[in-house]
């Protein structure tokens, strides 16, 4: 089976008929989904005895295309509770507090950045360049939402 247009040349850009993105990295946290709501990892109350689903919850995904352009997909996630059913603790991402507490919980919410381990070296380089550009763009446009 031959692809249409394959006789027009072998350039990677001209080859793609659509704007193709790959996942570069994602920001995750672990939560426990219970019958009584979503709790931070390890914060399910000891008085709870029902079913419990531990989930790696994705907060954001960085997508990069072959032109080293990055887009950020952010997901609205219900704020997890601590063991006292309080919410709004500070967010610690990769060891750095990126947001002060907004609620009455003092238990920090830990988020981790996980690079896509399946990428080949070329895509890693593309992603690194894209993220550097992304940060530069963010710095130039401080009104943009901080991720």
């Amino acid at each position, binding site marked *: 089976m031959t692809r249409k247009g394959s006789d027009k040349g072998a350039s990677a850009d001209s080859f793609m008929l659509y704007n193709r993105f790959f996942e570069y990295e*994602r920001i995750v946290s*672990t*939560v426990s*989904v219970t*019958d*009584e*709501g*979503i709790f931070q990892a390890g914060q399910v109350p*000891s*008085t*709870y*005895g*029902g*079913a*419990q*689903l*531990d*989930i*790696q*919850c*994705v*907060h954001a*995904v960085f997508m990069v295309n072959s032109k080293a352009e990055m887009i950020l997909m952010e*997901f*609205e*996630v*219900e704020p997890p509770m601590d*063991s*006292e*059913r309080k919410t709004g603790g500070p967010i610690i991402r990769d060891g750095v507090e990126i947001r002060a507490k907004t609620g009455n919980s003092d238990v920090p919410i830990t988020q981790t950045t996980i690079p896509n381990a399946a990428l080949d070296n070329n895509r890693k380089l593309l992603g690194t360049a894209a993220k550097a550009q992304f940060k530069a763009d963010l710095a130039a446009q401080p009104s943009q939402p901080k991720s």
Partner: protein
Amino acid sequence: MLVSPFSTVMGYSSPDGKGIYLKPTSEAAPDGWGEPRMDTTGATPVPIIPGTPGGPLERCLLRRKGSSYKASATKYFQKSGNITWWGDWRNPAKQVKGKHVLSYNGPKLRYFRDEGFNYGSDSSHNEIYYLGNFATIAPGPVLGACLRKINFYDPIAQKTAEETFIIVAVYQDGMDKFYKKRWPFRLKTPYNMSDAVREKEMRLYDAAEEPYGWIPMGTFAKPVDAYPPETPWFFNQSGTAAVAMRRTKQTFNNGYEDVTEDKFVRLKADVSDSNVSVSDLGNLAPLQYLEKYSKEHPTYVSTDILDYDHSWQEDHVKVTISLDGAQYVLCDYVGDTLYWGKVKYQIIRIQEGYYTKGTDPAQYVITYNGQDKNISNLGLRFGPRVHNNIEYGYVDPVPYVPAPADHEVTWWISVYEKVTLYYGPEGNEESGSIDLHYYDNGTSDEWAGNPRQQNNPYLYYYQFYTRHLRGFCDLRNMAFFSRDLHKYGLWQNSTATVSQTEKFKDTLYTEGNSSGEDKRSVKKTKTGTSEFGWPYTDMEQWAATFNITLSRTTYVATWPAGNYQGEIQKPGAKTFYAGDTTGDHAANWPSISDLLYGPVNQCKGNGVRTEQDSLAYSVEVPDVENEGSYVIISDTKPAGDPAALVGYGTKFYPIGSC
């Protein structure tokens, strides 16, 4: 509930519900706490503030994880009963998941009637529980229940398939009735139970309208003069058989007259896929009471220091009463093996009276060769010169000074009493035992020469105790909780088959003793019985009275006209069953009722043994050391420390397990 679409599942913990269900209480709310378990603002649920007594969510689930306990209270796990049926493993490859367990309500001591429990007095008696939820509601008070796979033809689907059924024995219309129903493990959560659901669960089978309804399997009419059921039917693990004890009235001739007494009969049900047949196995021969009198009349001649002959005669009168025999009192299945339990009496009491005539005063002084000589024969006569004085009507004249030609009386009472609860598999029913009552004061020969101590009439007690089962008894992995005269204790089978060191508790945890230092290391090399309880140093607190009644306390010796020998009265013989050991031949030995039933098993709290070998009990009992006060005792420190574990209440009672 909102998480992102790219989220991945890392693990799932099923709502197991396995463990022991506790009901926290306190002085302020003895019926237990319920929702809300938080303060009035709802803002700070920790520490949990007691909520509505008797309200919903009054129970919490205590689960053992490794060596520690975890407590939880949710609306999903609130239901359990104190009587359990243990089936096969839920997952043979993961036995940590435990067995299929159905639970329902029954008497506290599992095998023995509880005067505070009457089948049908509460709608909860119709309920069957599984994993902390409702399994179903039976059409009558549940006497027994099990799971069994049965090939079932569904006329609607027109096919036969093997399905799981609940088989149940209920008490309905004055009869034992057996039903089965298809049960695909559909649980009814406690917070969703309603009268409508309850009513639907109780309906009979109809292929079109009620395909999951109850299907009758058989009816067993109450034996003549039987009491209503007081104890459960126990199904075997496979659900192919069940056994029960039933109390009946029995009229019979006891050797003298017609009497009516209580008796137990053993009922055994053979359960097939479609029907149940019950047979009455009866019981053992009634207990045999015997009394026997004998008399000997020896004559004696002895020579005093002055070579004078002194002659005297004695009447030795011996009264022997005895009680022998055994009665089955309990039954159960361990897996698919049928176990019986019986109370066996070995009692003999002997009263010996020595009536001596012809003795001299203690000082029988004559003048011989100008010297005063005491030629009394008092020190020459035979028969015991020591007395035991166990509360009977004899008063020893002190000091005794026999007059010439008077007769002296000395007595001896020998008591050996042993009442034992034997249990074991059918055919080897005495492989295990619990001493319920033991008393041995020794014989006159053993004590001859020992002076009686007026201030210590109990000197002659070799062994003495009576044990009352209380709060908890389960022979499937034998453990029972008891009270004897000196202490409360837990008896538990050790299951170690290889040498290992375990820590045993010498003392039970109480409110006043919550330290962890009351354990000792024991190296176990084989199976055996471990005992926990208050130490025997408390034996100084022995009860001050113990009734030993021998009514034949008078005998008038006649001499020489009544000089006869041999039996003076023909032996008496009476028989009786479990119920009545009183009457004109009152012997005051503990009856089966005294030992196993009635008020003696009344105490707050309960004990629970799970199929996963967890055990917990917490019982409030009279304090043996402080009359009039009560003490809470429990077997495990975590379970006995609810403030730290559960977070609310000051004490708890185990309810059951699932």
